[in-house]
Every structure is written in structure tokens, then in C-alpha cells.
């Protein structure tokens, strides 16, 4: 793992700053006030292609739609919870108008920490996933973010990219190649499969290491593309390991867990435990403490895996 951990929102900034020169149609729109500029590297390199739209997300989403309809590839940066709050604009102006707008929903989940529920994107995946044509991406580290952003420079159709405020340990190796719609098997195993995404992925890998010490062989799959989801990989994991544990920093309703259950219900129904924020409001606290509280850290994930396996006996 080696490299210093980065938040995926900073990794996004690095990626657009790197890709800006080779993709002249790439623009960035930002809702933040100028006192806390993000993404800052892109803004420094391409000031004429970075637009501070003010705290007016509904308008910003519509402007991005119009830019896209005129051939630009705008990345709209806003807090995930506020994107969810502007669902109508995403639905009509971004999706139904057949745009290539990219929405970067930052501040994913309880990993936001002290700001509390008001600033936590906890229902955004459920909402974005419900929209026809919308791709939903959630990278697990900086390498995956870079790959996802590069992919989005040329992908046709609207997309939602969910990023974290907190730094994430790398789960992928140098030279990682992003493949849209394909899950990534991070560890092989036969007793159960842990399916993780974004901020919970590194914890899932460590949970598998903890479970190994107890003699449990856990497969770990990282789903960076929640829609369209990798049905084949999930169905094979269900068939080969018999039990699935989904782990996400999002409500357990409608997010990764929902997507996995829908995919498997059609193809390979097995016992699934959906683990995440259990249909409650998030609360303030240090991110690490919140991950412990909601059992989204390695120890917590391993304990939920034990429950899933014990119930099956």
C-alpha cells in the first residue's frame, strides 16, 4: 500500500488537473465559496475553465447540463447531500436531457465526521441509482479515482462520482487499470464474500485478514461501479461462497446493498447481510470513531461477518 493516503476528493482534483491539458472540453463547476476553493489544483492550472457558481446547486446542475449540451464535459462538484437535495434538477436537466454532465458528490457518508448528519451524503447512491441512464461510481482509493475520472472524460451519458472527505488507504496496486462496470476481487476466499465500495473498502480487506486468523476464508470484492453493477462477478461469488456481506458508508436502503440484492435476486439468490448506516440519521464525531460506532471499520466488519456465518449454522 505504501503511498500516503489521499481523500478521493483530493484524488479527483489531481486527476482533473492532470487530464485538463489533454481534454480541453473538461470544465469544473464548484459550489463552494471562494474561501475554501476545491478543486484547487485544477483551478490554479485552468482558471478560465473553473467556475465558482456560489451556493446555488440547483442552478449549477442546470448550467452543467447546458454546457454539456453544447459539447463540454463539465464536472460539477457539490456535497453529496446537496446533490441529493437537488434530485429534480439531476433527474430532468442532467439525465432526461441526455447530457454528459458529471456530478461529483463529495462528503460521502459518516466519514464526514464532526459536521454531522446535515453534511453527510447518506441517501445519494439510492437516489442517483434510481435514474435511467445514470452511471454511479464510487472509487476506493486515489488510483481508482484517477481511472474513473479518466474514463468519465469520454463516457457518454450522465454520471455520478461519489467521493470522500476523509483520506483512504490504498487498496489497489500501482499500475491499476480502471474497468467501468467491473468489480475488483481484492482477496480470494470461499466461506463468504464481503462486497465493499468507497470508504469501507480498505476496512473490508483488513476484516478479511482478521477473519483469516479465525480460520474464515473471506473473499473481498470492491464495487467501484455501483451502476451498472457487475452481475457476473457477484453471481459467481454467491455461487462459490454462499453468503454475501455488503459494506457501505450509506444507508442500508437503496445503496450498494440494495444494488447487490437486486442483482442476486434475479440471478443467484443467497443469504445477504446488508451492512451500513442502519436506517438512522448519522451523528457528529471523529470519522474513525463513527466508523467504529457503526461497525464500518475492520473489527466491526469482521464481527458482522461472524454474525452472518453464525446465523447460517
Amino acid at each position: 500500500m505504501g503511498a500516503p493516503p489521499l481523500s478521493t476528493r483530493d484524488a479527483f482534483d489531481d486527476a482533473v488537473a492532470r487530464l485538463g491539458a489533454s481534454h480541453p472540453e473538461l470544465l469544473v463547476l464548484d459550489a463552494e465559496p471562494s474561501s475554501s476553493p476545491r478543486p484547487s489544483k485544477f483551478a490554479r492550472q485552468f482558471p478560465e475553465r473553473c467556475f465558482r457558481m456560489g451556493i446555488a446547486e440547483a442552478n449549477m446542475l442546470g448550467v452543467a447540463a447546458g454546457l454539456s449540451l453544447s459539447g463540454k464535459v463539465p464536472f460539477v462538484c457539490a456535497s453529496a447531500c446537496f446533490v441529493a437535495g437537488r434530485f429534480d434538477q439531476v433527474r430532468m436537466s442532467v439525465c432526461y436531457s441526455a447530457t454528459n454532465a458529471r456530478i461529483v458528490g463529495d462528503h460521502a457518508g459518516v466519514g464526514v465526521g464532526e459536521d454531522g448528519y446535515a453534511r453527510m451524503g447518506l441517501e445519494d447512491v439510492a437516489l442517483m441509482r434510481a435514474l435511467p441512464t445514470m452511471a454511479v461510481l464510487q472509487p476506493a482509493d486515489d488510483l481508482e479515482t484517477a481511472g474513473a475520472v479518466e474514463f468519465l472524460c469520454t463516457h457518454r451519458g450522465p454520471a455520478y462520482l461519489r467521493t470522500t472527505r476523509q483520506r483512504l488507504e490504498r487498496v489497489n496496486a500501482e499500475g491499476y487499470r480502471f474497468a467501468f462496470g467491473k468489480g475488483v476481487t481484492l482477496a480470494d476466499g470461499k466461506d463468504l464474500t464481503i462486497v465493499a465500495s468507497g470508504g469501507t473498502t480498505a476496512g473490508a480487506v483488513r476484516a478479511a485478514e482478521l477473519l483469516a486468523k479465525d480460520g474464515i476464508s473471506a473473499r473481498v470484492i470492491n464495487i467501484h461501479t455501483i451502476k451498472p453493477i457487475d452481475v457476473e462477478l457477484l453471481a459467481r461469488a454467491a455461487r462459490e461462497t454462499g453468503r454475501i456481506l455488503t459494506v457501505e458508508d450509506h444507508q442500508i436502503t437503496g445503496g450498494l446493498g440494495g444494488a447487490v440484492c437486486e442483482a442476486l435476486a434475479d440471478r443467484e439468490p443467497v443469504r445477504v447481510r446488508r451492512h451500513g448506516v442502519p436506517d438512522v440519521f448519522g451523528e457528529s464525531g471523529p470519522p474513525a470513531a463513527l466508523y467504529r460506532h457503526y461497525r464500518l471499520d475492520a473489527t466491526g466488519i469482521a464481527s458482522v461477518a461472524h454474525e452472518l456465518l453464525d446465523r447460517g449454522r
Partner: protein
Amino acid sequence: MLDNATLDTLRRRAFDLRIDSLSAIAAAESGHPGGTLSAIDLLQTLYFAEMNHRPKEPHWPERDRFVLSKGHAVPALYAVLAHAGYFSVDLLPSLRRLGSPLQGHPANFLLPGIEASTGSPGQGLSIAIGMALAAKLDGSPVRVYTLIGDGESAEGQLWEAARSAPRLALDNLCVVLDHNERSQEALGEAPLADRWRAFDFQVLAIDGHDHLQIAGALTAARATKGQPTVVVAETVKGRGVSFMENAAGWHDLAPSREQLAQAVAELRAAQAQLAPSAKPGAP
């Protein structure tokens, strides 16, 4: 300035467009005749006397853009696009039918000529701003127009957009307000024109059924530098049909076969009385 021949054609076509859009609404047995009829003179002046566009090449990159923010008035736009040659007028009666590209509210990916999908109130101006900004970034002469409604002028997003367009100095953007209800002023609120002025738009107030005034305002908007324009067009809901004009109930009610026949008879009679070489005034 419009020449007399163009003005005569606009005035004559205004009746045909009203008949065609009302007939489509009647065939669909649903739709919004009031706001459709109020918008027709504005729309056809844009498409036949102002905008730079190629109906046979709907994706021509240098075309001027039009976004129908008040999406419920789309029967008027369908009629204008058909008469301009984007598609056959024979398609108009398929309005709102299953499988028709003429959706109840505009869908851009189904019908060439429709630039954006609209129908959720208050969203069109933001899209138009994005298009105008893209033209500025490209150094392109493209102009962008959007028609907004009186009712949606209460939406918050519209005023977020109103704040952003002057800050981006989008003088290639022209908003046309189909001011057919004056619903907010009726509640004692400040005139909409004053509010647009306060947001640093150039405001031009006109009679929205007078093709000369409409064309004049659009020309003035094009000549204005450094600032977007809003044309506040005073219009009448149901314009041109005696029993629909300013009558409650015609916002979203389709005419019956008998009512359509009466409306068509009225419009044809008025059209027949048009004198050539027009004086200002419309149906």
C-alpha cells in the same frame, strides 16, 4: 427591423400555428391551451425572424439555441418547428400519443429541434446559461434564447440563475418572459420587471403579441454588450380564441371537438380579414 413581407407572413402564420397547436391538444384530449396560445407570437418571431438556424441540419454547431423553460407550452413549439421544416406538420396530431416523439413536455433526445428536456418549472434558464457560457468559451457567435413562464417565476432556481447570468456577462443570452398571468403582481408583489432589473439584466417591456415589437426587442437584445436581456412580454392566456382569452379553466383543459371547431372558425375568419402590408397588431 422586419420588412412588410415578413411581417405579413408572421401575422398570417400566427393563425395557422394557433389552429395546429389547438388541434393537436384537442386530438390528444389533454394539454395546456392557455399558455400555448400566449406563447405563439413570441416563438414564431424567434424562429422566423431572429434565430440563426437550419431546420434540415438540426445539430448544426453554429445554430442559435432555444430552451423552452415553460415546457407545458410545447404544442406551440411543436407547431413552430413543424412549420419551420424540422419535421412534417403531419406529425402534430400524434402529440401525447404512446410512441410519439411529441411528448407531453419536450424531450430533446426524441425530437431533433428540441434543445433540452423541460417541464419541471424553473429549470430552463440554467440550461440556457450553460449553453451561452459554452458559446463564450468557444468564442462562438451563437445566441441563446429561453422562454420562461409567469407561474415558474416563483421558483427559487430561476433566481439562482438570474443571479449568475449577469455575473458571467452573458450578453449572448436573451430571456423572454411570457407574462400572461401576472400572478405574483396580483398578490401584491413587486413587478417582475423590477426584479430582473435589480439582478442587472437589461429589461425590455413589450406587447408579446405584436410581432414588430417582439422583433425590435430581440434586435435590441442582440445589440447589447456586456449584459443579458430579459424581454418582458405582456401576453394574454388563450390569445386569439374568444372563449379562452383570460378565461379561467383553460390552463390545462383540452377543447372538445365542438369547441375546437368554433375556435378554428374564429381564427380562420380573423385570418381572412388580414389586410396585406401590415399595421402593428396581431390576432
